[in-house]
C-alpha cells in the first residue's frame, strides 16, 4: 500500500513537470530545466552517499567534465569552418589542439559527455578504494580534486577559456539553441533523461548490487569476509554517479548557455551535497525534490539579496542535519509520529477498556 502511494507520487510529480512548459514563462522554464538537470547528478549522490555511505565533495568535477565536453562541441559548432575559438587566438594559439578537434563530431561529443566523467570517476575510485581510503579522507580527497580541477581550468586559458569559461553556443545538431520551441524540446529531453536515470537508479538499488552497497555502508569488512570485494562495488557505484553527473552537466549548459570554472569548484560541489541532504539522501524522490527546492531558493534569495545566500545555505544545512537528518521526505513520518504523540488514540482507549 505504502509503496503504491510512493509510486503514485513519483508519477504525479513527473506529469506535473511534463506540463510545466504550458504554464511557466520561458525564464522560469529555463531555470526549472537547469534544476532538473542538476537532479540527475543528485541521483548519483543518493546512490554513493545515501546508500553506500561514500561522501564525495567533488561531484562538480565530473559534472564539469560532462559540461565542458559538450561545451567544446557547441563552441566548435558555432564557428565557421577553419575558424578557432576567439580565446585561443587571443592566447596566441595558431591551430586547434587535436583533443579539441575530436569533439567536433557530435556523436563523439555526446558519447564523451558520458564516457569521460565515467572513466575519470571509475579510475580514481579504483585507485583510492583499493588502497582502502574511505570516510573523511575520501571526502577531503575529492574536495581537493574539485579545487585542482577549477584551478587548472582557470590557469590553462588558451585551452579552456580560463576564468570566463565557454559560452556563445547557438546551434546543436543543426537546431537553433535559443529558439523558444527548441528550448521546450530541450526541457522535455532533460525531464526524460531524469526519468530514465530515476528508473535506472531504482532498478539498480533493487538488485543484489544495491543490497551489497547498503551492506558496505553498514560493515565494509563484514562484507569483505563474506567474499565480496567492497572496492569493486564502490568503484562501480562511483563511476555510475560520475556518469549521471556528466549527463547532468551536459544538459545543464543547454539551458544555461555557459560553463565556467566557478560552476565546478569546491563551493558548487558542496552545494550539490547540501541539496541532496535537504531532500533526504537515501530517497531518490527526496533528492529530486531537495535539488529543485534548494536551487529555486538560491535563485530567489540571491536575486533579492546576493550576500544572503551563503548564510541561508549554511543555516539550512545545520538545520537539516540536526533536526531532520533524513531530509524533507521524512516530514510525513515525523508529522504522523507527532500526531500520535499528541492524540495518543489507541493507548488511551486500551486503558479504558481494561
Amino acid at each position, binding site marked *: 500500500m505504502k509503496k503504491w502511494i510512493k509510486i503514485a507520487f513519483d508519477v504525479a510529480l513527473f506529469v506535473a513537470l511534463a506540463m510545466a512548459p504550458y504554464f511557466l514563462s520561458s525564464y522560469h522554464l529555463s531555470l526549472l530545466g537547469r534544476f532538473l538537470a542538476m537532479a540527475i547528478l543528485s541521483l548519483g549522490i543518493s546512490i554513493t552517499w545515501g546508500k553506500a555511505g561514500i561522501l564525495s565533495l567533488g561531484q562538480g568535477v565530473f559534472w564539469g567534465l560532462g559540461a565542458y565536453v559538450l561545451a567544446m562541441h557547441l563552441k566548435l559548432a558555432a564557428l565557421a569552418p577553419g575558424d578557432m575559438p576567439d580565446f585561443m587566438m587571443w592566447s596566441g594559439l595558431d591551430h586547434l589542439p587535436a583533443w579539441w578537434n575530436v569533439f567536433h563530431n557530435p556523436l563523439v561529443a555526446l558519447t564523451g559527455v558520458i564516457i569521460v566523467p565515467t572513466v575519470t570517476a571509475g579510475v580514481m575510485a579504483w585507485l583510492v578504494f583499493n588502497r582502502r581510503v574511505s570516510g573523511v579522507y575520501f571526502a577531503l580527497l575529492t574536495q581537493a580534486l574539485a579545487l585542482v580541477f577549477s584551478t587548472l581550468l582557470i590557469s590553462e586559458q588558451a585551452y579552456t577559456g580560463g576564468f570566463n569559461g565557454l559560452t556563445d553556443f547557438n546551434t546543436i545538431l543543426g537546431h537553433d539553441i535559443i529558439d523558444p520551441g527548441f528550448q521546450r524540446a530541450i526541457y522535455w529531453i532533460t525531464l526524460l533523461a531524469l526519468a530514465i536515470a530515476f528508473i535506472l537508479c531504482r532498478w*539498480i538499488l*533493487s*538488485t*543484489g*548490487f544495491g*543490497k*551489497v552497497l*547498503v*551492506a558496505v*555502508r*553498514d*560493515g565494509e*569488512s*563484514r*562484507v*569483505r*569476509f*563474506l*567474499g*565480496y*570485494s567492497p572496492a*569493486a*562495488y564502490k568503484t*562501480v557505484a562511483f563511476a555510475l554517479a560520475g556518469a549521471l553527473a556528466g549527463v547532468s552537466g551536459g544538459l545543464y549548459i543547454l539551458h544555461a548557455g555557459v560553463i565556467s570554472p566557478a560552476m565546478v569548484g569546491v563551493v558548487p560541489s558542496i552545494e550539490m551535497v547540501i541539496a541532496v541532504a535537504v531532500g533526504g539522501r537515501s530517497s531518490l524522490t527526496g533528492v529530486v525534490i531537495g535539488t529543485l527546492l534548494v536551487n529555486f531558493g538560491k535563485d530567489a534569495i540571491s536575486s533579492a539579496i546576493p550576500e544572503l545566500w551563503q548564510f541561508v545555505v549554511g543555516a539550512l544545512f545545520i538545520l537539516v542535519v540536526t533536526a531532520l537528518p533524513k531530509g524533507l521526505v521524512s516530514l510525513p513520518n515525523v508529522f504522523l509520529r507527532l500526531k500520535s504523540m499528541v492524540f495518543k488514540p489507541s493507548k488511551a482507549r486500551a486503558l479504558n477498556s481494561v
Partner: protein
Amino acid sequence: MATPLLSVENVTVSFDGFNALDDMSLHLMPKSVRVLIGPNGAGKSTLLDAIIGHVSPTKGRVVFKGEDITRLDEYKIVRKGICRKFQAPGILESLSVADNLALAARHHRQCWRSFGRGLSSEVGSQVERVLGLIGLEEKRHSLAAQLSHGQKQWLEIGMVVASDAELLLLDEPAAGMSHDESTQTAELIRSLSTQHSILVIDHDMAFVEQLDAPVSVMHMGKMLREGTLEEIRNDPQIAAVYLGRAKEIPHA
C-alpha cells in the same frame, strides 16, 4: 592417510617485533571439529586472522585444499570456501534478516554478476533452511538492527552456516549466551560437522565440553598441546599456564 583440509605451516606473525604467532602449526581434517583454547593474548584470534588473510604472516604458509592461500586477498580466500564469525557481532544492520543470510549464501559474489535477479530468488531455499535452523523464521523481514543481542549472535552464526563454506571459523560463538542457548549452539556445531570442518575458539569450558571435540591449547603464539579435553585437564603444564586465571582453568 587423508590430506588435511587446512594446514597452517610454521606461521609467524609479528607486530613491531612482538610475535603474536610464533612458528605455529595446525592441521585440520575434512569434516572435523577442533576447539582452540588458551589464555588471553595466546594468539587464537590472530591465528584466524592469518588463515583468512586479515594479517600477513612474516614466515610460513597457509594451505587450503592443497592450495597456498597465504598471500591472497581476504575476499578471494573467502570465495575458496572459508567463512568466519567474528567475536563482536558483525551483522548488516540496515538489511533484513533474510537479506543478511542471502548475501552470505550467494554463490556469485563478483560485482558484475550482482545485477541479475534479486537477492533472495537465487538462494531462497538455503535462506529458508538456515532461518529454520537459527529459529528466526518470524523475523525474516525485520531489520537486523531490531534483533536482541542473542538473536544477532544467532544471525551471525546463521550467516556462516548459509555461506556453506567447507571451513567455518567461529570466534567465541557462545559469548553472551545463556546456558540453554550455548547448549543449542554446541548441538548445532556438532550437527554441522557432518558437512563442514569447524575451528572454534572459546573460553567457556562447559561449552567446550559439550562440543566433545579434540582440543588444541595455544600459549604465547605457539601450540602447547593437542589432545582430548580429558588429557588437557590432567596436564600439569597447562595448569601452570593458566595459573592465576582461576576462572579459565580447564578443570570442571
